[in-house]
Protein backbone atom coordinates (compact mmCIF):
# COMPACT_ATOMS: atom_id res chain seq x y z
CA UNK A 1 0.00 0.00 0.00
CA UNK A 2 1.34 3.37 -0.99
CA UNK A 3 1.46 6.16 1.54
CA UNK A 4 -0.98 9.05 1.46
CA UNK A 5 1.12 12.23 1.44
CA UNK A 6 -0.23 15.10 3.52
CA UNK A 7 -1.19 17.95 1.23
CA UNK A 8 -2.22 21.21 2.80
CA UNK A 9 -4.58 23.38 0.77
CA UNK A 10 -4.28 27.07 1.63
CA UNK A 11 -7.64 28.77 2.19
CA UNK A 12 -7.40 32.44 1.30
CA UNK A 13 -11.12 33.01 1.08
CA UNK A 14 -11.50 32.60 -2.69
CA UNK A 15 -14.46 30.28 -2.53
CA UNK A 16 -14.75 26.70 -3.70
CA UNK A 17 -12.29 24.38 -1.94
CA UNK A 18 -14.55 21.33 -2.12
CA UNK A 19 -13.41 20.42 -5.65
CA UNK A 20 -9.68 20.51 -4.94
CA UNK A 21 -10.16 18.69 -1.62
CA UNK A 22 -12.17 15.93 -3.30
CA UNK A 23 -9.87 15.68 -6.34
CA UNK A 24 -6.67 15.39 -4.26
CA UNK A 25 -8.33 12.90 -1.92
CA UNK A 26 -9.48 10.85 -4.90
CA UNK A 27 -5.91 10.56 -6.22
CA UNK A 28 -4.48 9.43 -2.90
CA UNK A 29 -3.61 12.47 -0.79
CA UNK A 30 -4.48 13.21 2.82
CA UNK A 31 -5.89 16.73 2.54
CA UNK A 32 -5.97 19.39 5.24
CA UNK A 33 -7.00 23.03 4.96
CA UNK A 34 -4.74 25.82 6.22
CA UNK A 35 -6.04 29.17 7.35
CA UNK A 36 -2.86 30.16 9.20
CA UNK A 37 0.90 29.54 9.07
CA UNK A 38 0.77 27.05 11.92
CA UNK A 39 -1.43 24.76 9.83
CA UNK A 40 1.40 24.22 7.32
CA UNK A 41 3.37 22.28 9.92
CA UNK A 42 3.71 18.63 9.03
CA UNK A 43 2.63 19.07 5.42
CA UNK A 44 4.39 17.17 2.65
CA UNK A 45 3.18 19.65 0.04
CA UNK A 46 1.25 22.90 -0.20
CA UNK A 47 -1.43 23.64 -2.75
CA UNK A 48 -2.53 27.24 -3.28
CA UNK A 49 -5.75 27.24 -5.31
CA UNK A 50 -8.03 30.11 -6.08
CA UNK A 51 -9.52 32.42 -8.62
CA UNK A 52 -9.95 36.17 -8.69
CA UNK A 53 -7.66 39.07 -7.95
CA UNK A 54 -4.25 39.00 -6.24
CA UNK A 55 -4.62 41.87 -3.77
CA UNK A 56 -7.44 40.39 -1.62
CA UNK A 57 -5.68 37.02 -1.62
CA UNK A 58 -2.33 38.52 -0.55
CA UNK A 59 -4.10 40.61 2.11
CA UNK A 60 -5.66 37.46 3.48
CA UNK A 61 -2.36 35.54 3.43
CA UNK A 62 -0.70 38.46 5.24
CA UNK A 63 -3.48 38.77 7.80
CA UNK A 64 -3.28 35.08 8.67
CA UNK A 65 0.49 34.88 8.86
CA UNK A 66 0.77 32.70 5.77
CA UNK A 67 2.86 34.88 3.45
CA UNK A 68 6.17 34.34 5.27
CA UNK A 69 5.83 30.57 5.74
CA UNK A 70 4.75 30.05 2.11
CA UNK A 71 7.65 32.11 0.81
CA UNK A 72 10.09 30.19 3.03
CA UNK A 73 8.55 26.93 1.82
CA UNK A 74 9.17 27.94 -1.81
CA UNK A 75 12.68 29.25 -1.15
CA UNK A 76 13.43 25.83 0.37
CA UNK A 77 12.16 24.30 -2.90
CA UNK A 78 9.60 22.08 -1.19
CA UNK A 79 6.67 20.48 -3.11
CA UNK A 80 4.13 23.08 -4.17
CA UNK A 81 1.30 23.39 -6.64
CA UNK A 82 -0.21 26.78 -7.44
CA UNK A 83 -3.49 26.69 -9.31
CA UNK A 84 -4.75 29.68 -11.30
CA UNK A 85 -4.37 32.59 -8.86
CA UNK A 86 -2.02 30.32 -6.86
CA UNK A 87 0.30 30.28 -9.89
CA UNK A 88 0.02 34.03 -10.46
CA UNK A 89 1.01 34.72 -6.84
CA UNK A 90 4.44 33.19 -7.54
CA UNK A 91 5.35 36.19 -9.68
CA UNK A 92 6.54 39.58 -8.46
CA UNK A 93 3.32 41.50 -8.95
CA UNK A 94 0.00 41.66 -10.76
CA UNK A 95 -1.19 44.23 -13.29
CA UNK A 96 -4.77 43.34 -12.35
CA UNK A 97 -4.75 45.40 -9.19
CA UNK A 98 -1.13 46.41 -8.71
CA UNK A 99 -0.63 43.90 -5.89
CA UNK A 100 2.86 42.88 -4.84
CA UNK A 101 2.94 39.08 -4.82
CA UNK A 102 5.35 36.41 -3.54
CA UNK A 103 8.17 37.22 -5.97
CA UNK A 104 9.49 33.67 -6.27
CA UNK A 105 9.48 33.71 -10.09
CA UNK A 106 10.82 36.78 -11.95
CA UNK A 107 8.03 38.32 -14.01
CA UNK A 108 4.55 39.76 -13.66
CA UNK A 109 0.92 38.76 -14.00
CA UNK A 110 -0.44 40.55 -17.05
CA UNK A 111 -3.76 40.86 -18.89
CA UNK A 112 -4.39 38.47 -21.78
CA UNK A 113 -3.89 40.82 -24.71
CA UNK A 114 -5.62 40.12 -28.00
CA UNK A 115 -8.13 37.71 -26.42
CA UNK A 116 -11.34 37.47 -28.48
CA UNK A 117 -13.35 37.00 -25.26
CA UNK A 118 -12.48 37.91 -21.68
CA UNK A 119 -12.57 36.34 -19.19
CA UNK A 120 -11.01 33.32 -20.90
CA UNK A 121 -13.53 30.74 -19.72
CA UNK A 122 -13.70 27.14 -20.89
CA UNK A 123 -11.62 24.22 -22.10
CA UNK A 124 -8.47 24.96 -24.02
CA UNK A 125 -5.41 23.09 -25.16
CA UNK A 126 -2.28 22.87 -23.03
CA UNK A 127 0.70 22.61 -25.38
CA UNK A 128 3.87 21.40 -23.79
CA UNK A 129 7.18 23.12 -24.31
CA UNK A 130 9.22 20.82 -22.07
CA UNK A 131 8.80 17.29 -20.76
CA UNK A 132 7.84 16.99 -17.09
CA UNK A 133 6.39 14.08 -15.08
CA UNK A 134 3.45 16.33 -14.10
CA UNK A 135 2.03 15.51 -17.55
CA UNK A 136 2.83 11.78 -17.59
CA UNK A 137 0.07 9.83 -19.35
CA UNK A 138 -1.60 12.99 -20.67
CA UNK A 139 -1.63 13.68 -24.41
CA UNK A 140 0.13 16.81 -25.62
CA UNK A 141 -2.40 19.57 -26.37
CA UNK A 142 -4.99 17.93 -24.09
CA UNK A 143 -7.88 20.15 -22.97
CA UNK A 144 -8.02 21.66 -19.50
CA UNK A 145 -10.50 24.07 -17.95
CA UNK A 146 -9.53 27.73 -17.66
CA UNK A 147 -11.23 30.68 -15.99
CA UNK A 148 -9.14 33.85 -15.84
CA UNK A 149 -8.35 37.19 -17.52
CA UNK A 150 -4.71 37.49 -16.45
CA UNK A 151 -1.73 35.17 -16.64
CA UNK A 152 1.82 35.12 -15.29
CA UNK A 153 4.45 36.24 -17.79
CA UNK A 154 7.93 35.05 -16.75
CA UNK A 155 10.86 37.39 -17.26
CA UNK A 156 13.54 36.28 -19.76
CA UNK A 157 15.58 34.91 -16.85
CA UNK A 158 12.71 32.52 -15.99
CA UNK A 159 11.64 31.32 -19.43
CA UNK A 160 13.36 27.99 -18.85
CA UNK A 161 10.75 27.24 -16.17
CA UNK A 162 7.89 27.22 -18.70
CA UNK A 163 6.31 23.77 -19.10
CA UNK A 164 3.35 24.56 -21.34
CA UNK A 165 1.56 27.36 -23.16
CA UNK A 166 -2.00 27.93 -24.34
CA UNK A 167 -3.44 30.12 -27.06
CA UNK A 168 -6.35 32.52 -26.69
CA UNK A 169 -5.78 35.27 -29.21
CA UNK A 170 -2.12 35.00 -28.25
CA UNK A 171 0.09 32.56 -26.40
CA UNK A 172 0.34 32.63 -22.61
CA UNK A 173 2.09 30.44 -20.05
CA UNK A 174 -0.29 27.74 -18.76
CA UNK A 175 2.15 25.62 -16.73
CA UNK A 176 5.45 26.43 -15.10
CA UNK A 177 7.82 24.83 -12.65
CA UNK A 178 10.78 22.72 -11.78
CA UNK A 179 10.90 19.38 -9.96
CA UNK A 180 7.93 19.34 -7.54
CA UNK A 181 7.43 23.12 -7.40
CA UNK A 182 4.74 23.73 -9.96
CA UNK A 183 2.05 26.10 -11.09
CA UNK A 184 -0.79 25.69 -13.57
CA UNK A 185 -3.09 28.41 -14.89
CA UNK A 186 -5.92 25.94 -15.55
CA UNK A 187 -8.02 24.07 -12.99
CA UNK A 188 -7.01 20.37 -12.86
CA UNK A 189 -9.68 19.78 -10.19
CA UNK A 190 -12.28 20.79 -12.79
CA UNK A 191 -10.67 19.18 -15.83
CA UNK A 192 -12.14 15.69 -15.77
CA UNK A 193 -9.97 12.56 -16.12
CA UNK A 194 -6.89 14.42 -17.44
CA UNK A 195 -7.10 16.82 -14.51
CA UNK A 196 -7.23 13.97 -12.01
CA UNK A 197 -4.28 12.34 -13.79
CA UNK A 198 -2.25 15.53 -13.44
CA UNK A 199 -3.04 15.73 -9.73
CA UNK A 200 -2.15 12.05 -9.33
CA UNK A 201 1.20 12.81 -11.01
CA UNK A 202 1.73 15.67 -8.56
CA UNK A 203 0.98 13.35 -5.62
CA UNK A 204 3.57 10.92 -7.03
CA UNK A 205 6.11 13.76 -7.22
CA UNK A 206 5.35 14.61 -3.59
CA UNK A 207 5.88 10.97 -2.57
CA UNK A 208 9.22 10.91 -4.39
CA UNK A 209 10.41 14.24 -2.99
Amino acid at each position, binding site marked *: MTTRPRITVVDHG*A*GNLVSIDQALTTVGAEVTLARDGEALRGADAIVVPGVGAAAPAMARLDAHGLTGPIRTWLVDARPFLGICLGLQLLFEGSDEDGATTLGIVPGRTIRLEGAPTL*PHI*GWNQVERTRAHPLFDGIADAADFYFVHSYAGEPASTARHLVLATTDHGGSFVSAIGIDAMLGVQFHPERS*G*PDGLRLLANFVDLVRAA
Partner: protein
Amino acid sequence: MLRRRVIPCLDVADGRVVKGTRFVNLVDEGDPAELAERYAAEGADELVFLDITAATERRATLLDIVERTARRAFIPLTVGGGVRTVTEMRDVLRAGADKVSLNTAAVADPTLISRCAGRFGRQAVVVAIDARTLDTPPGAGLLRAWEVVVNGGRESTGLDVVAWAERAVDLGAGELLVTSIDRDGTGAGFDTVLLRAISSRVPVPVIASGGAAEPEDFVRAVRDGGADAVLAASIFHRRVHAIADVKAAMAAAGLPVRLVPAAVA
Protein backbone atom coordinates in the same frame (compact mmCIF):
# COMPACT_ATOMS: atom_id res chain seq x y z
CA MET B 1 -7.95 26.88 -29.28
CA LEU B 2 -10.77 27.67 -26.88
CA ARG B 3 -13.51 25.06 -27.19
CA ARG B 4 -17.19 25.84 -27.58
CA ARG B 5 -18.87 24.39 -24.53
CA VAL B 6 -21.90 22.13 -24.30
CA ILE B 7 -23.62 22.57 -20.94
CA PRO B 8 -26.47 20.49 -19.59
CA CYS B 9 -28.71 22.54 -17.35
CA LEU B 10 -30.38 20.95 -14.39
CA ASP B 11 -33.43 22.84 -13.17
CA VAL B 12 -33.67 21.87 -9.52
CA ALA B 13 -36.82 22.10 -7.43
CA ASP B 14 -37.06 20.69 -3.94
CA GLY B 15 -33.81 18.77 -4.38
CA ARG B 16 -34.84 17.05 -7.63
CA VAL B 17 -34.15 17.79 -11.27
CA VAL B 18 -37.30 19.00 -13.03
CA LYS B 19 -38.17 20.37 -16.42
CA GLY B 20 -41.29 22.06 -17.67
CA THR B 21 -42.34 24.16 -20.58
CA ARG B 22 -42.03 27.91 -20.07
CA PHE B 23 -41.18 27.38 -16.41
CA VAL B 24 -44.47 25.55 -15.66
CA ASN B 25 -45.79 21.96 -15.86
CA LEU B 26 -42.75 20.63 -13.98
CA VAL B 27 -41.84 16.95 -14.36
CA ASP B 28 -39.42 15.05 -12.07
CA GLU B 29 -36.32 13.94 -14.02
CA GLY B 30 -33.94 12.59 -11.37
CA ASP B 31 -31.31 13.17 -8.66
CA PRO B 32 -29.08 16.21 -9.42
CA ALA B 33 -25.75 14.74 -8.29
CA GLU B 34 -26.40 11.47 -10.10
CA LEU B 35 -27.32 13.22 -13.35
CA ALA B 36 -24.33 15.55 -12.98
CA GLU B 37 -21.93 12.63 -12.69
CA ARG B 38 -23.48 10.96 -15.71
CA TYR B 39 -23.15 14.11 -17.79
CA ALA B 40 -19.53 14.61 -16.74
CA ALA B 41 -18.75 11.06 -17.88
CA GLU B 42 -20.58 11.65 -21.15
CA GLY B 43 -18.49 14.71 -21.98
CA ALA B 44 -20.38 17.70 -20.57
CA ASP B 45 -17.99 20.66 -20.48
CA GLU B 46 -19.69 22.26 -17.52
CA LEU B 47 -22.91 22.02 -15.52
CA VAL B 48 -25.52 24.56 -14.54
CA PHE B 49 -27.96 24.11 -11.65
CA LEU B 50 -30.88 26.51 -11.59
CA ASP B 51 -32.76 26.26 -8.31
CA ILE B 52 -36.10 27.36 -9.69
CA THR B 53 -37.94 27.25 -6.40
CA ALA B 54 -35.12 28.82 -4.38
CA ALA B 55 -37.18 31.81 -3.35
CA THR B 56 -39.51 29.69 -1.29
CA GLU B 57 -37.47 26.61 -0.37
CA ARG B 58 -34.88 26.24 2.32
CA ARG B 59 -31.31 26.75 1.09
CA ALA B 60 -29.79 23.82 2.97
CA THR B 61 -31.18 21.37 0.44
CA LEU B 62 -29.48 23.20 -2.40
CA LEU B 63 -26.12 23.52 -0.62
CA ASP B 64 -26.16 19.80 0.12
CA ILE B 65 -26.82 19.00 -3.55
CA VAL B 66 -24.05 21.36 -4.66
CA GLU B 67 -21.52 19.70 -2.37
CA ARG B 68 -22.56 16.16 -3.34
CA THR B 69 -22.25 17.14 -6.99
CA ALA B 70 -18.87 18.85 -6.61
CA ARG B 71 -17.54 15.68 -4.98
CA ARG B 72 -18.73 13.46 -7.82
CA ALA B 73 -18.35 15.49 -11.03
CA PHE B 74 -14.90 16.98 -11.72
CA ILE B 75 -16.14 19.64 -14.13
CA PRO B 76 -17.16 23.23 -13.42
CA LEU B 77 -20.48 23.92 -11.75
CA THR B 78 -22.55 27.10 -11.93
CA VAL B 79 -25.45 27.55 -9.51
CA GLY B 80 -28.27 30.02 -9.91
CA GLY B 81 -31.68 30.70 -8.53
CA GLY B 82 -32.58 32.97 -5.69
CA VAL B 83 -29.09 34.23 -4.78
CA ARG B 84 -29.74 37.72 -3.43
CA THR B 85 -26.70 38.63 -1.34
CA VAL B 86 -22.90 38.39 -1.26
CA THR B 87 -23.23 36.10 1.75
CA GLU B 88 -25.54 33.71 -0.11
CA MET B 89 -23.10 33.66 -3.00
CA ARG B 90 -20.25 32.87 -0.59
CA ASP B 91 -22.21 29.94 0.84
CA VAL B 92 -22.87 28.49 -2.61
CA LEU B 93 -19.20 28.82 -3.63
CA ARG B 94 -18.05 27.26 -0.37
CA ALA B 95 -20.40 24.36 -0.95
CA GLY B 96 -18.49 23.61 -4.17
CA ALA B 97 -19.82 25.81 -6.97
CA ASP B 98 -17.37 27.64 -9.22
CA LYS B 99 -19.76 30.31 -10.39
CA VAL B 100 -23.06 31.78 -9.32
CA SER B 101 -25.63 33.14 -11.71
CA LEU B 102 -27.61 36.20 -10.70
CA ASN B 103 -30.93 37.06 -12.27
CA THR B 104 -33.93 38.69 -10.58
CA ALA B 105 -31.92 40.06 -7.66
CA ALA B 106 -29.42 41.71 -10.02
CA VAL B 107 -32.22 43.48 -11.88
CA ALA B 108 -33.70 44.67 -8.58
CA ASP B 109 -30.29 45.85 -7.33
CA PRO B 110 -27.58 46.00 -10.02
CA THR B 111 -24.91 46.80 -7.39
CA LEU B 112 -25.22 43.13 -6.37
CA ILE B 113 -23.21 42.34 -9.53
CA SER B 114 -20.36 44.70 -8.65
CA ARG B 115 -20.34 43.65 -5.00
CA CYS B 116 -20.15 39.95 -5.87
CA ALA B 117 -17.51 40.54 -8.56
CA GLY B 118 -15.49 42.66 -6.15
CA ARG B 119 -15.49 39.92 -3.55
CA PHE B 120 -15.11 36.77 -5.68
CA GLY B 121 -13.81 38.04 -9.03
CA ARG B 122 -15.83 38.62 -12.16
CA GLN B 123 -15.13 35.11 -13.45
CA ALA B 124 -17.37 33.78 -10.67
CA VAL B 125 -20.31 36.02 -11.59
CA VAL B 126 -22.68 34.92 -14.33
CA VAL B 127 -25.60 37.22 -15.04
CA ALA B 128 -28.61 35.29 -16.32
CA ILE B 129 -30.92 37.27 -18.57
CA ASP B 130 -34.38 35.99 -19.47
CA ALA B 131 -35.46 37.70 -22.68
CA ARG B 132 -38.92 38.03 -24.16
CA THR B 133 -39.43 39.28 -27.71
CA LEU B 134 -41.27 42.57 -27.98
CA ASP B 135 -43.77 43.04 -30.77
CA THR B 136 -42.02 44.75 -33.63
CA PRO B 137 -43.58 48.16 -34.16
CA PRO B 138 -44.58 49.09 -37.73
CA GLY B 139 -41.61 50.52 -39.60
CA ALA B 140 -38.99 48.82 -37.44
CA GLY B 141 -37.84 46.70 -40.38
CA LEU B 142 -35.21 44.18 -39.36
CA LEU B 143 -34.74 45.68 -35.95
CA ARG B 144 -35.98 43.48 -33.16
CA ALA B 145 -36.08 44.16 -29.47
CA TRP B 146 -36.35 42.05 -26.35
CA GLU B 147 -37.45 42.87 -22.86
CA VAL B 148 -35.87 41.52 -19.67
CA VAL B 149 -38.32 39.43 -17.66
CA VAL B 150 -37.74 38.18 -14.12
CA ASN B 151 -39.14 35.79 -11.53
CA GLY B 152 -38.97 32.85 -13.89
CA GLY B 153 -40.40 34.80 -16.81
CA ARG B 154 -43.53 35.83 -14.94
CA GLU B 155 -42.75 39.51 -14.51
CA SER B 156 -41.94 42.28 -17.00
CA THR B 157 -39.27 44.86 -16.22
CA GLY B 158 -39.40 47.22 -19.20
CA LEU B 159 -35.59 46.88 -19.48
CA ASP B 160 -34.10 46.49 -22.95
CA VAL B 161 -32.14 43.22 -23.06
CA VAL B 162 -29.09 44.48 -24.96
CA ALA B 163 -28.78 47.59 -22.78
CA TRP B 164 -29.06 45.45 -19.64
CA ALA B 165 -26.46 42.99 -20.98
CA GLU B 166 -23.98 45.81 -21.55
CA ARG B 167 -24.66 47.30 -18.14
CA ALA B 168 -24.28 43.93 -16.41
CA VAL B 169 -20.86 43.46 -18.03
CA ASP B 170 -19.81 46.98 -17.05
CA LEU B 171 -20.78 46.18 -13.46
CA GLY B 172 -18.68 43.00 -13.39
CA ALA B 173 -20.48 40.09 -15.01
CA GLY B 174 -17.89 37.62 -16.31
CA GLU B 175 -20.38 35.69 -18.42
CA LEU B 176 -23.95 36.09 -19.64
CA LEU B 177 -26.49 33.26 -19.69
CA VAL B 178 -29.10 34.37 -22.18
CA THR B 179 -32.42 32.52 -22.22
CA SER B 180 -35.11 33.15 -24.78
CA ILE B 181 -38.32 32.75 -22.78
CA ASP B 182 -40.25 32.54 -26.06
CA ARG B 183 -38.23 29.52 -27.13
CA ASP B 184 -37.63 27.83 -23.75
CA GLY B 185 -39.03 24.31 -23.74
CA THR B 186 -40.53 24.66 -27.21
CA GLY B 187 -37.80 22.96 -29.27
CA ALA B 188 -38.00 25.79 -31.80
CA GLY B 189 -34.21 26.32 -31.76
CA PHE B 190 -32.13 29.03 -30.08
CA ASP B 191 -32.95 32.66 -30.89
CA THR B 192 -29.78 33.38 -32.86
CA VAL B 193 -30.77 36.97 -33.60
CA LEU B 194 -31.06 37.67 -29.87
CA LEU B 195 -27.73 35.94 -29.24
CA ARG B 196 -25.95 37.88 -31.97
CA ALA B 197 -27.44 41.18 -30.74
CA ILE B 198 -25.77 40.53 -27.38
CA SER B 199 -22.57 38.68 -28.32
CA SER B 200 -21.63 41.40 -30.81
CA ARG B 201 -21.85 44.01 -28.06
CA VAL B 202 -20.04 42.45 -25.08
CA PRO B 203 -16.51 41.04 -24.61
CA VAL B 204 -17.54 38.28 -22.17
CA PRO B 205 -18.65 34.77 -23.16
CA VAL B 206 -22.35 34.36 -23.95
CA ILE B 207 -24.12 31.10 -23.08
CA ALA B 208 -27.12 30.37 -25.31
CA SER B 209 -30.23 28.93 -23.69
CA GLY B 210 -33.84 28.20 -24.57
CA GLY B 211 -35.20 26.19 -27.47
CA ALA B 212 -32.65 23.45 -28.20
CA ALA B 213 -34.07 20.42 -30.02
CA GLU B 214 -31.57 19.20 -32.63
CA PRO B 215 -27.75 19.08 -32.70
CA GLU B 216 -27.88 21.53 -35.60
CA ASP B 217 -29.48 24.10 -33.25
CA PHE B 218 -26.27 24.12 -31.20
CA VAL B 219 -24.22 24.72 -34.34
CA ARG B 220 -26.42 27.70 -35.26
CA ALA B 221 -26.21 29.21 -31.77
CA VAL B 222 -22.41 29.34 -32.08
CA ARG B 223 -22.03 30.03 -35.79
CA ASP B 224 -24.96 32.44 -36.27
CA GLY B 225 -25.52 33.64 -32.71
CA GLY B 226 -21.86 34.08 -31.74
CA ALA B 227 -22.43 32.05 -28.56
CA ASP B 228 -19.41 30.76 -26.68
CA ALA B 229 -21.38 27.97 -25.05
CA VAL B 230 -24.73 26.30 -25.52
CA LEU B 231 -27.02 25.06 -22.78
CA ALA B 232 -29.89 22.61 -22.87
CA ALA B 233 -31.91 20.56 -20.41
CA SER B 234 -34.66 18.23 -21.51
CA ILE B 235 -33.09 16.89 -24.71
CA PHE B 236 -30.23 15.55 -22.57
CA HIS B 237 -32.33 14.43 -19.58
CA ARG B 238 -34.71 12.53 -21.79
CA ARG B 239 -31.84 11.14 -23.89
CA VAL B 240 -33.28 12.56 -27.09
CA HIS B 241 -29.69 13.39 -28.04
CA ALA B 242 -26.41 12.48 -26.36
CA ILE B 243 -23.86 15.19 -25.62
CA ALA B 244 -21.51 13.32 -27.95
CA ASP B 245 -24.04 13.66 -30.81
CA VAL B 246 -24.23 17.41 -30.28
CA LYS B 247 -20.43 17.69 -30.21
CA ALA B 248 -20.11 15.55 -33.33
CA ALA B 249 -22.44 17.91 -35.18
CA MET B 250 -20.46 20.91 -33.95
CA ALA B 251 -17.14 19.32 -34.94
CA ALA B 252 -18.55 18.43 -38.37
CA ALA B 253 -19.47 22.10 -38.81
CA GLY B 254 -15.86 23.06 -38.08
CA LEU B 255 -16.46 24.35 -34.56
CA PRO B 256 -13.78 23.60 -31.93
CA VAL B 257 -15.11 21.18 -29.31
CA ARG B 258 -13.54 19.05 -26.60
CA LEU B 259 -13.75 15.41 -27.53
CA VAL B 260 -15.48 13.20 -25.02
CA PRO B 261 -12.74 11.70 -22.85
CA ALA B 262 -12.44 8.03 -21.99
CA ALA B 263 -13.67 7.00 -18.56
CA VAL B 264 -11.33 7.52 -15.61
CA ALA B 265 -8.90 4.61 -15.45
